[in-house]
């Protein structure tokens, strides 16, 4: 069974590229473009992996993880994605329950490997 990925990314340009990549890698991808959107989609279906852009237009992306945990719908593994991975951001993401922080643009092979390993 192919892994189900919830991609939370507000920029269509970036989500387009990542969706193309992950679908070519054989994964099922559902896109959410805001925190509210992600919480709604993530509450209805279970996901193996969540790729979470932490800078979203409506709220801090990490609130998505918190909301989904409270609803008992936390994805198996969550990776935060950000443009600036300083120690403070990393600590905040890990404390919120992310597996790791990926610096954008995430090298495509790294992303494919991470998602494959998360569902292995």
């Amino acid at each position: 069974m192919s892994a189900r990925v919830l991609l939370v990314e507000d920029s269509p340009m970036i989500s387009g590229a990542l969706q193309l990549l992950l679908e070519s890698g054989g994964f099922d991808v559902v896109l959410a473009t805001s925190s509210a959107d992600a919480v709604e989609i993530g509450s209805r279906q279970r996901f193996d992996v969540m790729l979470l852009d932490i800078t979203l237009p409506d709220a801090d992306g990490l609130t998505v993880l918190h909301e989904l945990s409270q609803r008992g719908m936390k994805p198996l593994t969550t990776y935060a994605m950000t443009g600036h991975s300083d120690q403070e951001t990393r600590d905040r993401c890990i404390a919120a329950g992310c597996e790791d922080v990926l610096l954008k643009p995430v090298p495509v092979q790294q992303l494919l490997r991470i998602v494959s390993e998360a569902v292995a």
Partner: protein
Amino acid sequence: MVTDPSMAAVPLGLDLTTERIAALEAQLVEAQRLIRDLEERDALKTQFLSNISHDLRTPLTAIITHAEILRDGILGHVTSKQSESISTIITGGRQLLDMIAEILMHARDSSEPLTLVESEFSIHEVVEQVTSLNESLVARKGLTLERYLSTELPAVRGDRDKVIHVLTNLLGNAFEFTPSGGRVWVNAGMSTDEADLVLIEVGDTGRGIAPDHHELIFREFAQVDSSASRVHHGTGLGLTIARRFVELHGGRIWVESELGAGSRFFFTLPANRGSE
């Protein structure tokens, strides 16, 4: 107009003084207004730099990701020439990202001064991490990279990310300005001049820097060759940021160099003596 100093003694001088004071006050108000105006414009420019840097990242991230998808044959086979061409897009894109990161960091520092996220770490590990990341570049450029790390080095207390940034920047410059066949080295040990300071040196056998330019290169946006036709490009912020980061730690950064005789950049960081 009163030009004769003796005229100042006449009663009229009192009125003149009042007038002068009024004129000076008006000038002062005008000067204050101009300063405020300039400060506002400066803040606006900083904000603009920060916004534009952020907005540049998004399309660039998409370009790089798409190019990598193509290069890796995820959408179908590519010939070696196509792959080579796509790799250039990726390299160029990543260079742009680094430059944008520098501008963004500088803009942020101007509006909201940077602070340190401190931890205790080993300089050995930092040097190891930064140099191993550059191994392929060193090989590609035909350079030799040497490490001389004192075994007696105590841990350092500071902002690991920022120290990595300084070392990456100094090594990046050394690689850029040293022709093929040259040597680049990193040397770390205790400072012999000042107590409780770790001294880190990044040296190269490259083109060197004239003594006249030793201060200039640390100034924001400054480059030794600032002409549009210059060979080496960059934001002119790399060393400004490096100096800022080192000074935030209470350290010092400087260069010893002469044209044609290579360069030796030095910086100091406080040793964490308490951990021994």
